[in-house]
């Protein structure tokens, strides 16, 4: 589950950076582009950091009868 979460986060960051720096934004859509690209980058970075720092509780050994 953790690798999938990390990959999705990286995709979000990539999409945000693309919209911010490479996409040719029409003049009237600059505000929307500023918000959407910022939103994607923030969520992506937060998701990536959470996936790095997430610690699973130690699993309890199961007894086999």
């Amino acid at each position, binding site marked *: 589950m953790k690798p999938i979460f990390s990959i999705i986060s990286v995709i979000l960051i990539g999409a945000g950076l693309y919209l911010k720096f490479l996409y040719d934004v029409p003049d009237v859509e600059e505000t929307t582009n500023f918000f959407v690209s910022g939103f994607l980058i923030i969520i992506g970075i937060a998701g990536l950091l*959470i996936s790095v720092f997430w610690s699973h509780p130690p699993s309890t050994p199961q007894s086999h009868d």
Partner: protein
Amino acid sequence: MNKKVITIGLLAMTALILLTLYTFGPLAGRGGGATVNPVSRQAKTEYKAMGPGTPVTNTYHNRDIKENFYTLSVPDSWQLESSPAGAYHFTFSGGEGTVELMDIPDNTTPELLVLSQEEPRFKNVLPGYQRLNYQKLSINGNEAYQLIYQYTDGKKTNTATRTTIVGKDRAGVLSLISEKETAPGLQAIFTSVLNGFKWENQ
């Protein structure tokens, strides 16, 4: 969930709130958007003829929009009026001139934009619109598309020369409008103004 994850979540939420305030809320307008750079309004006066009766030239260096700095020279008899960022609006005896920056969307070309969007718009808006000429030019090494047309404004007929000069991000659009009777006499000056338009960061 450990403390680091909670901290990251809180920081992300704070960043999103700040982003929203910066985009739509009370902080909007402080970060982005083009503003008029005072340098753009300072004219450098030179003794350089631009046409009959215009021995002095004012040169402006527009530094309003980062990827589209440009230089423009006009006769000093042209009066600079209030203009938005990236643009100049001049009035002079018998006409007016405007220089502005226009976004060219990725899904079209400058020529297509001029012929399929701008010209139909003029036909709808300007009474008595009539195309006089259309040509592709090269101005200081940049491709340009020039549309010359006339329209009626009340009782008088105006002639307009609208030239779209392709730039790095946006295109420069020079619109020079004069009364039909005075247009031939201003042609040499208009040509000098067009040839004086140069992109600075290309």
